[in-house]
């Protein structure tokens, strides 16, 4: 009798776990990433390593910055315009498009970062000065900028600080990410932030490669972290940028794995794609990700592999 009951329970557990497994599998089956093309100009696909990416999600245009040249690509990944080589702005680090369709550049000159408002052709109109910065952010220098819903999100990867500002530069809120982490005896200098992105709920997404961790920072300042070191699917080797798609899935680049790792909105592992290789759908050292309004994922890579574009699909 007793033995029978145990057997019964075992069967229940077994079928339960089968259920869980098949749920996991069907999840994996619903997400698909297919390589479409690489960003190209009239001579063919770009042959640069890494470089800075940003997206104008309303027009589905993509900006790629390499050695001070700002290249603009249309929704089919063809270069339509470039500017910046003759600007005396110092080192151009990033570009964003504001609500009016004007271009905003982030540049670095003589030890400080500046935000420069330009017209849609990239001609400078004037500087946007960060205003009302609190004392802790007085010497904040951004190395990356994202524009989303009328706000500018600025990150300093080396200072480990983030600032959110109005389009006119007025400080809204700021974070010292390093101070938000549980401290041991380690130096601030021993970690770097990845590039940041901002999702549809205005969460700031980033990773810290040396901690093998990804982070979601809500507008209320709540920090959630996930990730485990490892080479098995779903684990992190040396991670790069993270974005979120229209379904709320999180996509994390991994430079060492040479793959993009996908998690659903509840942070369950879904699948990985890419992997090192010479095929068009392969990736080499993927680092930064951006995503447009049609769930097209743009990935920067090393080894002069340029920017690969994937279409994400969910049926």
């Amino acid at each position, binding site marked *: 009798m007793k033995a029978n009951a145990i057997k019964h329970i075992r069967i229940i557990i077994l079928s339960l776990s089968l259920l869980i497994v098949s749920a996991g599998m069907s999840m994996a089956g619903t997400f698909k990433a297919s390589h479409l093309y690489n960003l190209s100009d009239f001579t063919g696909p770009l042959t*640069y*390593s*890494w*470089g*800075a990416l940003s997206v104008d999600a309303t027009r589905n245009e993509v900006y790629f*910055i390499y*050695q*001070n040249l700002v290249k603009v690509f249309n929704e089919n990944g063809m270069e339509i315009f470039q500017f910046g080589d003759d600007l005396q702005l110092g*080192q151009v680090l990033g570009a964003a498009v504001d609500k009016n369709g004007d271009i905003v550049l982030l540049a*670095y000159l003589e*030890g400080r*970062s500046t935000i420069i408002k330009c017209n849609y052709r990239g001609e400078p109109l004037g500087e946007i000065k960060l205003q009302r910065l609190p004392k802790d952010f007085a010497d904040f220098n951004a190395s*990356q900028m994202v524009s989303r819903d009328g706000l500018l999100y600025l990150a300093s*990867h*080396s200072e480990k600080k983030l600032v959110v500002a109005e389009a006119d530069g007025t400080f809204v809120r700021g974070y010292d990410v390093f101070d938000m*982490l*549980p*401290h*041991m005896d*380690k*130096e601030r*200098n*021993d970690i*770097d932030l990845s*590039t940041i992105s901002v999702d549809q709920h205005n969460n700031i997404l980033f990773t810290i*490669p*040396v*901690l*093998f*961790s990804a982070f979601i920072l809500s507008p209320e300042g*709540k*920090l*959630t*972290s*996930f*990730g*485990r*070191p*490892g*080479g098995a*699917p779903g*684990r*992190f*080797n*040396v991670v790069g940028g993270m974005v979120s798609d229209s379904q709320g899935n999180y996509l994390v680049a991994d*430079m*060492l*794995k*040479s793959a993009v790792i996908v998690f659903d909105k*509840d*942070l369950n592992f879904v699948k990985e794609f890419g*992997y*090192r290789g*010479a095929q068009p759908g392969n990736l*080499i*050292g993927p680092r*930064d990700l951006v995503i447009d309004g049609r769930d097209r994922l743009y990935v*920067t890579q*090393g*080894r002069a592999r340029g920017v690969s574009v994937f279409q994400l699909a969910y049926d």
Partner: protein
Amino acid sequence: MKTLKLSLFGTAAAVVAIGLGANAYAFHSGGVAECDGCHSMHTPAAGGSFLLQGSDQSSTCLNCHEHAGDTGPSSYHISTAETQLGAGVSPLQRTPGGDFAWLKKTYSYLDRSGATVTEDGQVHGHNIVAADQGYAADSVNTTAPGGTFPASQLACNSCHDPHNPNRRGVDGNISRTGAPIVRSGSYNNSVAPVAGQAVGAFRLLAGAGYTKGSVTFLGNPAAVTPSSYNRTEATTQTRTAYGVSTSGGHETWGQWCSTCHPDMHSTGNYAHPIDQGMGSSLAANYQTYVASGNMTGSSATSFTSLVPFAQNTGDYATLALSAQNNNSVLTGPGSTDQVMCLSCHRAHASGFAEMLRWNNEYEFLTINGAYIGSDNSTSGNAHLGRTSAEWQSAYYDRPATTFATYQRVLCNKCHAKD
């Protein structure tokens, strides 16, 4: 304290505190780091060896040691990404070893006859092979000059032991086994282990018994560096305190470099003296030399990181006292302190030919009070294809006023022939 802070992360089941444990913020912490930072154990590997995934060993290191988007010197980065290396722009890192991106800076200029000369970037240092980041083997030096080590195999792990088991214990001796390594042993604030503990060998450098191809290292060189070492030297210098030791698992700097360059060192090869005491007259030169023609200095303010020397001690606590980055210790050499390879060369790369610490290709570093840049109207063709700003960055941002108005090569720091 730790759990309290962790709870701020919220209660979501997904919040996994992995990687945030003790010592998590450093990566190597003086020894072998988390395997997963360099090896990917379960990824479908296309090519590559040792599960490293990167095209080669050095690409794996540069995943972390190069960071596209840097705006200036940034902690442990030793390479500037190509995306930050436009024409006229110098590499950004200012570490004692130097920024490998100088290998990608090729300069063209007209020589005295008016013919175009190209100074190929690859002459600026050790050409490590890192295909993902665009570094290729030296095409001229096929082996280490003065040795047989093949240039095609030169990698970060030719010189650094990626698993670094070399530990320095409380007695100051280095061995491959013994008390556990608790942290880096490179810094002025991390040198002294307590009993039962050890610290890592300086810069995880290859130590006794480390074999690469046909070469085997015989010991670790002694040195201590300031904990903040990647920084501009526009106002204060970064002083790495190099030492001299041949006991307890150590070898001298000259011996260490000579693992691959044996004939650059051995006596009778017409090479510059190495691992040799300065002697009283050269030490006196160093102490009093301020700039060309100016011998009014004094020992206490005479140090320059453009011409460092090895202090004649293997005691790390003593070395730590000089390893400062605030100009608090600028004491020059005594007669027993030594000239060594790194007195003239950097270890990775520099803005000058032969990986030197200064430009030795022309008699003047400055002319008429300014660097010999293409924008200095009095420097003629001597600019070697660089602007004054580019020269300044190669001298780790020192203003030209650090030198004489017509400064000659820094051999004179010791020899005072100018």
